[in-house]
């Protein structure tokens, strides 16, 4: 029995070795952010509807086509989810309840995922074949804009500014789609992917008057508002070779 098992393992290894070949991918993605909204209030000041808006990025993956249908590789990428919010500025109005509403969008971070990729093509030898793909790994959020303003609010009571900061965490992104064979080993892939773990931290800076201070001498306080996990629903275009 033991001999049979060993023979089997060597047999599979031999078969695998004969079928394994290098395969690489280059993906670009674009889509929309998903997730809840955050409304921040500070007295009469407010910034509302802070949420993920647009997402885009790219990945490059390199690995082995183990079987005609199974692929495994590792990769790295970069993507960003723009976060927006509604800003309210009462500075221009006689009536303090009136305000100019501005839609602010912040391009504040780039997330760098490093992942293992498992992909299943029905049959890559066919001209058109469907596939499923799963990328699992870890992502590092790099803050590229310290100001990262997702919204602001100004009135006589003071100023409220909200910011978004990226957070590190798990990277998990399944993709489904179809591959269009372009040559003997190359192809074009069209898919939809969903990244449910886009983590960020919302912070606020609240500047207000106090008795003993004027506009030139405001009290400024920083607040961690909340941590949010958004999603990114994207269309993926990729080239494999």
């Amino acid at each position, binding site marked *: 029995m033991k001999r049979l098992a060993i023979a089997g393992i060597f047999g599979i290894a031999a078969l695998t070795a004969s079928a394994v070949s290098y395969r690489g991918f280059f993906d670009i993605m674009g889509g929309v952010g998903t997730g809840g909204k955050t409304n921040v209030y500070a007295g009469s000041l407010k910034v509302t509807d802070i949420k993920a808006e647009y997402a885009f990025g790219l990945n490059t993956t390199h690995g082995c086509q183990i079987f005609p249908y199974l692929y495994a590789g590792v990769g790295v990428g970069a993507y960003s989810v723009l976060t927006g919010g509604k800003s309210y500025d009462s500075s221009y109005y006689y009536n303090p309840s009136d305000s100019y509403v501005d839609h602010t969008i912040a391009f504040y971070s780039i997330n760098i995922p490093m992942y293992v990729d498992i992909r*299943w093509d029905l049959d890559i030898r066919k001209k058109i074949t469907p596939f499923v793909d799963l990328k699992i790994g870890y992502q590092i959020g790099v803050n590229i804009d310290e100001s990262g303003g997702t919204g602001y609010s100004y009135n006589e009571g003071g100023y409220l500014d909200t910011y978004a900061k990226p957070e590190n965490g798990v990277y998990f992104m399944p993709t489904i789609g179809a591959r269009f064979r372009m040559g003997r080993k190359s192809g074009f892939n069209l898919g939809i992917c969903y990244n449910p773990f886009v983590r960020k931290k919302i912070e606020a800076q609240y500047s207000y008057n106090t008795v*003993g201070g004027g506009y030139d001498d405001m009290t400024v306080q920083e607040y961690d508002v909340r941590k949010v996990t958004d999603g990114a629903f994207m269309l993926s275009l990729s080239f494999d070779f």
Partner: protein
Amino acid sequence: MKKFYNMLATALAVVGFMSFMQSCSYDTEDVYLPAHEQGTVNFTVTNLSFGILDLEIYDADTFSEKVEPGYLKLNAVSKYDYSYQSKEYSFTKEFDVITGIGSEEDIASNPENYVMVDGKVWRTEKLSTGSLRKYFDIMVVYPGTILRIEYFPNEDEEGADFTLPGGESIRLTKSNSTYDYTIPVDMNIHAGDSYPIQAVSSYKHNNVTYDLTGYINVGGMSYGESLVYYKDHWWASWVFENLDKQ
């Protein structure tokens, strides 16, 4: 092939379910930071003095060449003693004021007047309603600021005592806010006197009502940034001013 499509359908269902569940958990969250600018502030000015230290008349355009008559440069000092939440504070400030007080002809020929405080020129408008301007300050405070209302009577009221009508509202407008003040009772104001007033008014800002304790001073020199129109002859201005806690 069938197996693959089953797998594809399962993957789609998993992704769809995952995004659906995540969307369901994506409810809107309201986060309230401490509202520092709201609330009731009890502020009582116990003493206010204002003295003119120096008086010079300067050219209206250059503010550097002495002319006569024309504009006044006042080097003044103001002193406030006030209590806030059972603590006593005192504030003294010395500053220069350049303003357009002159003869009626001067003012008529120079409808644009300027006020300079601490080197910063603020334009004031329509100050030519009286050749001798009399005014009062209502010192009120909401967090962090002092509000002054300047009074400029019509020529026919020149030099006369006047009454602040009880129940009347004064609307103060600045470029970005409107405040309505209500005079609680009739108040007879005599030029040159000072009137400590308890609970001068309350005002509403962003649906929050502030009860105010203030002080009226008649005859003091004041300055302003913008003006307010009220019943053809009420003019007001307001400034922000730092108060140093001591």
